[in-house]
């Protein structure tokens, strides 16, 4: 039985065209791009072509504003620790309460080392509080780091306004655009971002390769040192096959933004969401329904627990994820849902469906057929469902 894969915010299928583009660089064209001989040195052209493809996806003004990294976590860490290193007199960083751990945890680490870190709140729909940002930013703020789109709810943040506020106070602006890349158009020039992180495996590229956009002129201190690669900004022998892979994936992602794939995906997401709301009582959509990436829906099923739902969906080879405590091994529901003050009877029963352009009507029909009885079954066991109106 084929998987009905609705967990594309976790990772995506590496497209065959991407794998095909990568393959020659493992065993045939294995030379070191830094070598003097043609055999190795010609791989430099492959890297620069990929850099151009990546720059195109985010509309960077210059190709050399792209640095290849091992993953978006490395990109994020690089920016945060760079800010700490580059601005020793401005020990204040602002981020949001709903960032991915790849931003939250380095921020907390800096906090423990004496930096002042503010975590901007969101409202019950997951919307960013611009007023709070304005009230907290000052001339000691070195960096504002706010995600472009949230991984759990898909909510898009007003990055352009945030960048404007940051720059007005002399701070740099970084955005973790991992969940935006490939789903919505990204234009670093229009937004005036100084730094931007992406990861290939979230847009049908391979795992283990990411990119960091560093605007020309933005102060940046390298995180990995020990080599001249990436113009001394990220040492380590270039991972040629994976760089070729992220380049190809970026090229394909850019095409999908305009060829109707995204609209088709959005229509399926809407069909899924509407179908669930129509068929099942006591559900709640989490996130800003008016302003979301087109592939994500986060739905809470009241009075039951997310892991149980996922385990039943798994029987039908339906892959999704949950913000419930039990799935992660932690004991609390996701920090994103808590920041949104989703009531506990809903937070524990949240399911995230995240589509790709490969999903079909049949996939959605299967979920709409199988999910209602699963929810009904779990609610029959739940001591709270009967009491909900009491």
């Amino acid at each position, binding site marked *: 039985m084929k998987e009905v894969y609705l967990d594309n915010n976790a990772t995506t299928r590496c497209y065959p065209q991407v794998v095909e583009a990568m393959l020659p660089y493992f065993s045939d064209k294995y030379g070191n791009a830094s070598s003097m001989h043609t055999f190795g040195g010609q791989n430099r052209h492959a890297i620069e072509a990929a850099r151009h493809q990546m720059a195109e996806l985010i509309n960077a003004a210059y190709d050399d504003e792209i640095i290849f990294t091992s993953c978006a976590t490395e990109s994020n860490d690089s920016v945060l620790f760079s800010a700490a290193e580059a601005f020793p007199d401005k020990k204040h960083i602002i981020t949001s309460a709903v960032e991915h751990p790849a931003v939250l945890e380095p921020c907390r680490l800096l906090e423990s080392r004496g930096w002042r870190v503010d975590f901007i709140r969101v409202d019950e729909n997951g919307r960013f509080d611009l007023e709070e940002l304005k009230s907290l930013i000052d001339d000691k703020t070195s960096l504002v780091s706010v995600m472009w789109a949230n991984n759990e709810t898909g909510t898009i943040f007003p990055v352009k306004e945030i960048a404007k506020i940051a720059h007005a106070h002399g701070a740099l602006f970084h955005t973790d655009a991992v969940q935006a890349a490939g789903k919505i158009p990204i234009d670093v020039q229009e937004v005036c971002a100084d730094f931007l992180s992406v990861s290939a495996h979230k847009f049908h590229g391979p795992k283990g390769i990411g990119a960091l956009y560093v605007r020309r002129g933005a102060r940046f201190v390298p995180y990995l040192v020990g080599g001249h690669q990436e113009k001394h900004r990220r040492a380590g022998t270039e991972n040629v096959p994976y760089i070729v892979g992220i380049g190809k994936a970026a090229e394909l992602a850019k095409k999908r933004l305009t060829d109707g794939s995204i609209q088709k995906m959005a229509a399926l997401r809407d069909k899924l969401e509407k179908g669930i709301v129509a068929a099942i009582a006591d559900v709640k959509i989490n996130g800003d329904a008016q302003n979301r990436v087109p592939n994500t829906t986060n739905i809470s099923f009241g009075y039951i627990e997310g892991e149980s739902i996922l385990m039943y969906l798994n029987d039908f080879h339906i892959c999704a994820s949950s913000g419930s405590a*039990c799935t992660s091994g932690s004991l609390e529901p996701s920090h994103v849902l808590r920041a949104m003050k989703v009531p506990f009877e809903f937070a*524990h029963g949240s399911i995230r469906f995240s589509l790709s352009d490969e999903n079909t009507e049949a996939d959605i029909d299967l979920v709409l057929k199988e999910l209602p009885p699963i929810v009904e079954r779990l609610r029959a066991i*739940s001591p709270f469902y009967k009491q909900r109106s009491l």
Partner: protein
Amino acid sequence: MWDYTDKVMDHFKNPRNVGAIENADGTGQVGSLICGDALRLTIKVNKETEIIEDAKFETFGCASAIASSSMLTEMVKGKTLEEASKITNQDIADALGSLPAEKMHCSVMGMEALDAAIRSYRQGGKPVEFEQQEEKIVCRCFNVSEEAIIKAVRLNHLKTVEDVTHFTKAGGACGRCKADIQKILDKVNGMVQAAAVQKSFNELTIVEKIKAVEKVLEEEIRPKLNMDGGSAELVDLSGNAVKIRLIGMCSGCINAQATLKNFIEKTLQEKLDKSITVEQA
């Protein structure tokens, strides 16, 4: 993904005894919507024999919470209240094959609901909420008392704060109580050790001595020798003279004598009695 046993999956997918007994003789409740798991257990008890004739459950929670509840109802049916009250969380986990460490609190929830249901019966059938003593709450996030932590530590031989979190959830949210949990661990485990030492080594029977030496070997000595690819076994014991055979990489090691005297003998002396001597077998 969790490695659930087939038994866990069976009881999750085909839960036994779902529902609530009407006019139940005992109703025990534990957990809440906030905690993320909750269990309501109802029992029907024969007043003459005090045998639990029926048990039903309703559970809000993950697969292992549902499976633990289902298994609990199967285990208590047919038992007297006296027998049922001896069921521990480990018994529930064992009956399910096993539970992932992070999910042990699901089995603890079963034990607590049963405890509350039995108390409910004794108090005339009015539903009883498993309650932690308010003045001794250690973990405010999950409302876990010192008593509950001590019980879990004793029953399951817990050693670290992480263990306590896996079994009771205490410390699993904000983490502010972790230092308090460590203190409780120190106290309980310290007391356990103190109790063992109370009777001096010389007063122990030969079997007790062997057990005591074996315990120190297992907990303190072998783990360290294992790191170098070696180990040690107890060969003989006479009075306070212990004979040890070094095995693996330790046998024939040029430092064998130092290992025996400076490490094994010293550790046994520290843990058990100053007069212990160690010789190579």
